[in-house]
C-alpha cells in the first residue's frame, strides 16, 4: 500500500465529490431559476471536495506512521517470532531483512533465521494494506456523504470554503514560524549540553580559540574555547570592512539609479547589479582568494609592510562588501523611488539643488527601507562562510590589523561540525553554542534596528 496510490485515490474521490456537489447545486438552480442561491454551484462543489480530500489526507498521514508499527506487532505476535534472537541489535537486523524481502526491496535474506519471518511479514503487510484501503474509502465516503447532504439552496457553502482557504493560509504561515522555533529549540538544547562541559564565562570572554576534537571529552580544556577571536573576526570582516565597502557604494548607486540615471541606462544597470546577488558565494571566494588577496598582499608589500599574508581579513571583507552591494542598493533604490514625487517637487520649488533634495528630503523619508536593506546586508555578511574560508583562513586570530589572517563564527561552525570529533565532544557541541550566539545577536540587531527606524522615521503619509 503506497501513499502515492492513496493520495491519487483521495484526489480522484475528491474530484468525484466536486462533480457530484456541483451537479446537485445545479439541479437546485434548474428547479427554481428565480431563487437567488446563497452560494454559486462551484462553492458547493469545493465544499464537498474539501470534506473528502482533507480527512482522507489526514488519515493517510496518520496511517503511514501507524501501519508499519501494526505490521511489526503482528509479526512479533506470530509463531515464527519465537525463533528471534533476544539480543537487540541482531533482532533488529533480522526483522529489517525480513521486512525488506517481504516488500521486494531485497532479493532475499542474508541471515537464514530471518527467512521464516518473511512470510508472516507478507501476510501482515497485505492485511493492513487492505484495511488501509477500506478505511480510506470509508472516510472519503463518510465525509462526502455528510457534506453532500448539506448541499442545499440555502446552505452557505461560500463562507465555509472561504474559511477553509483562510485555514490553509494560516497553516502555511505557521510552518515558517514553527520552523524558527524548532531551530531555536534544537540550538538551545545542544548549547546547554555544551555549557555543561565548558563554562559560559570561558566561552564568552576567553581570547584563545583552539578546540582539540581528539582530546578527552571528559576533561575539556575550557581555556581553548574562548570565542572572542571569532566574534571579533565576524564583526571585523562582516560588519566593519564589508559595510565600509557596501553601504557607501550601495547607497550611491541607488541614488544614481533613481535620481540621475537615464531610464534606458537604469533598465540595464539595475538588473546587472542584481545579478551580483545571484553569483554563488564560492565564486566570490575564488575571486577573493586568487585575485583580491594577492593584490592586497602585493600592495601591502609595496608600501613596506613585509609581513602581509596572502590570506587577509581585508580581502574577504572587501569581496564580501562587493557581494552585498545589491542588497543595500536594491532596497534603498526601492524605498527612495517610493517617496512621493510631490516631496521632490516641493523641495525643488524652494530652490533646493538635486543633492540637497536627496540628502535632506528623499533620504530621511526613505530611511526605514534603507536601514532594512543595511540590516539584511549585515545579517547576510555575518552569516557568510565560503569567502572567509577561502580568503581569510580558518585559524582564529584576535587582531585589529586587516592584513592578518582571521576567521569567523560561521567558518568555525562548519569546521567543528565537519571535523572528526564525535557528537558528544565539546569541540563539536561548540558549533551549536556559536550558532546560538549568532542567532541571538542577529535577533537583537533586528530588534534594535526596528526600534531605531520607528523612532526616527519621517512618515510621509
Amino acid at each position: 500500500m503506497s501513499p502515492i496510490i492513496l493520495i491519487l485515490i483521495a484526489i480522484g474521490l475528491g474530484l468525484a465529490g466536486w462533480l457530484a456537489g456541483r451537479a446537485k447545486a445545479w439541479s437546485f438552480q434548474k428547479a427554481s431559476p428565480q431563487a437567488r442561491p446563497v452560494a454559486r454551484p462551484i462553492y458547493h462543489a469545493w465544499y464537498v471536495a474539501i470534506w473528502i480530500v482533507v480527512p482522507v489526507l489526514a488519515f493517510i498521514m496518520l496511517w503511514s506512521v501507524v501501519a508499519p508499527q501494526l505490521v511489526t506487532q503482528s509479526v512479533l505476535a506470530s509463531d515464527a517470532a519465537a525463533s528471534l534472537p533476544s539480543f537487540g541489535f541482531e533482532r533488529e537486523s533480522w526483522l529489517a531483512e525480513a521486512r525488506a524481502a517481504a516488500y521486494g526491496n531485497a532479493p532475499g535474506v542474508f541471515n537464514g533465521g530471518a527467512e521464516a519471518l518473511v512470510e508472516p511479514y507478507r501476510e501482515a503487510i497485505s492485511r493492513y494494506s487492505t484495511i488501509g484501503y477500506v478505511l480510506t474509502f470509508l472516510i472519503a465516503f463518510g465525509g462526502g456523504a455528510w457534506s453532500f447532504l448539506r448541499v442545499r439552496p440555502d446552505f452557505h457553502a461560500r463562507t465555509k470554503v472561504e474559511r477553509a482557504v483562510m485555514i490553509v493560509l494560516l497553516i502555511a504561515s505557521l510552518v515558517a514560524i514553527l520552523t524558527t522555533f524548532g531551530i531555536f529549540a534544537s540550538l538551545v538544547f545542544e548549547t546547554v549540553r555544551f555549557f555543561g562541559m565548558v563554562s559560559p564565562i570561558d566561552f564568552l570572554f576567553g581570547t584563545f580559540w583552539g578546540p582539540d576534537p581528539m582530546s578527552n571529552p571528559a576533561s575539556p580544556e575550557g581555556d581553548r574555547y574562548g570565542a572572542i577571536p571569532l566574534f571579533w573576526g565576524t564583526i571585523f570582516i562582516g560588519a566593519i570592512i564589508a559595510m565600509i565597502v557596501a553601504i557607501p557604494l550601495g547607497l550611491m548607486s541607488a541614488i544614481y539609479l533613481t535620481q540621475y540615471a537615464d531610464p534606458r541606462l537604469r533598465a540595464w544597470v539595475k538588473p546587472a547589479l542584481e545579478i551580483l546577488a545571484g553569483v554563488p558565494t564560492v565564486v566570490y571566494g575564488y575571486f577573493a582568494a586568487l585575485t583580491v588577496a594577492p593584490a592586497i598582499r602585493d600592495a601591502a608589500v609595496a608600501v613596506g609592510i613585509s609581513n602581509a599574508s596572502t590570506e587577509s581579513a581585508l580581502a574577504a571583507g572587501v569581496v564580501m562588501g562587493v557581494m552585498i552591494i545589491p542588497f543595500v542598493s536594491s532596497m534603498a533604490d526601492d524605498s527612495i523611488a517610493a517617496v512621493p514625487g510631490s516631496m521632490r517637487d516641493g523641495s525643488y520649488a524652494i530652490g533646493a539643488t538635486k543633492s540637497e533634495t536627496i540628502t535632506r528630503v528623499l533620504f530621511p523619508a526613505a530611511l526605514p527601507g534603507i536601514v532594512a536593506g543595511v540590516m539584511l546586508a549585515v545579517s547576510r555578511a555575518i552569516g557568510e562562510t565560503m569567502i572567509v574560508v577561502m580568503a581569510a583562513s580558518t585559524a582564529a586570530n584576535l587582531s585589529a590589523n586587516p592584513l592578518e589572517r582571521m576567521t569567523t563564527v560561521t567558518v568555525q561552525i562548519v569546521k567543528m561540525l565537519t571535523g572528526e570529533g564525535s557528537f558528544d565532544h565539546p569541540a563539536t557541541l561548540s558549533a551549536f553554542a556559536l550558532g546560538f550566539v549568532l542567532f541571538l545577536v542577529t535577533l537583537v540587531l533586528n530588534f534594535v534596528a526596528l526600534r531605531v527606524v520607528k523612532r526616527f522615521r519621517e512618515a510621509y503619509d
Partner: protein
Amino acid sequence: MTVIHESIKDDTAAKMKARDVSVYYGDKKAIDDVSIDISPDYVTAFIGPSGCGKSTYLRCFNRMNDTIPIARVTGRIELDGENILDDTMDVVQLRARVGMVFQKPNPFPKSIYENIAYGPKIHGLGDKKADLDVIVERSLTRAGLWEEVKDRLEDSGTALSGGQQQRLCIARAIAVDPEVILMDEPASALDPIATAKIEELIDDLSGRYAIVIVTHSMQQAARVSQRTAFFHLGKMIEYGPTSDIFTNPIEQRTQDYITGRYG
C-alpha cells in the same frame, strides 16, 4: 490669438513678462505662443477646463517643467528683465525668487519648524538659530498659521490637517522671501472652510508678492483675483480684469465657459 482687454494694455509695472511661450511634451504642443505680464499689484488667475494647459504654463515661471524629461519650453520669460528660460539661468536662485504651492499639500515629513527652516537653511538666509527662529515665526504669521502651531513646532508637519498643511506649504514658500508665488490649484484638495482661509490669505499676501493662481473654480478666481486669463486647448483665449472677464467677456468661448456651457 489672445484677446486682451483694452483697459489693461497699458500696465507697466510687470515683475515677470512671458512672451510667445510654447511648451512641448515630446512632439505634442501643450502650450501655444502664450504671452502675459505678472505684477505684484494684483493677483492673476488662470482659469480653463481640465487639460487646457494652465498648470503647464504656470510651471514655466519657475522652470518646474525641467523636472519632466520630455518637456521642452520655447519663447522668453523675463524676471526683472532677465530671461529665465536662458541656459545660463540658475534655477536654484530662480526658484528662491519664484516660489510655488502645489495642488496637494506636500509638507516634508519633518517637524513644522524644519519644514519652514529648510529653505532659509539651504539658501544661507539664517545661519544662527535665532535668525531662523525669526524667519519661522514671521513666515508662519504671514501664512496665518502661527497662532495654531506656535506651541507644537516640533510636531511633524504631516500631522496637521489638510488646510493647515497647505498654509504650512505657503509659509514654507514665503520663508525664502520670494518675489513671486505660483499657486497650482492650492485649495482644490481642501474643504470649504480651509478654502476660505487660503483665499483670505491670498488676499493678505497680494501686494507684497506677485501671485499667480491656477484654479478650476470660477468663483474662486472671481473672489481672489484682479486679472484673469482664460485658457483653452493650450491657447490663452482672453485676458483682462477679472470683473470684465466674468461680466462682460469678449470671446464666445470665454462666455460659454463661465456660464457653464462646457468644461
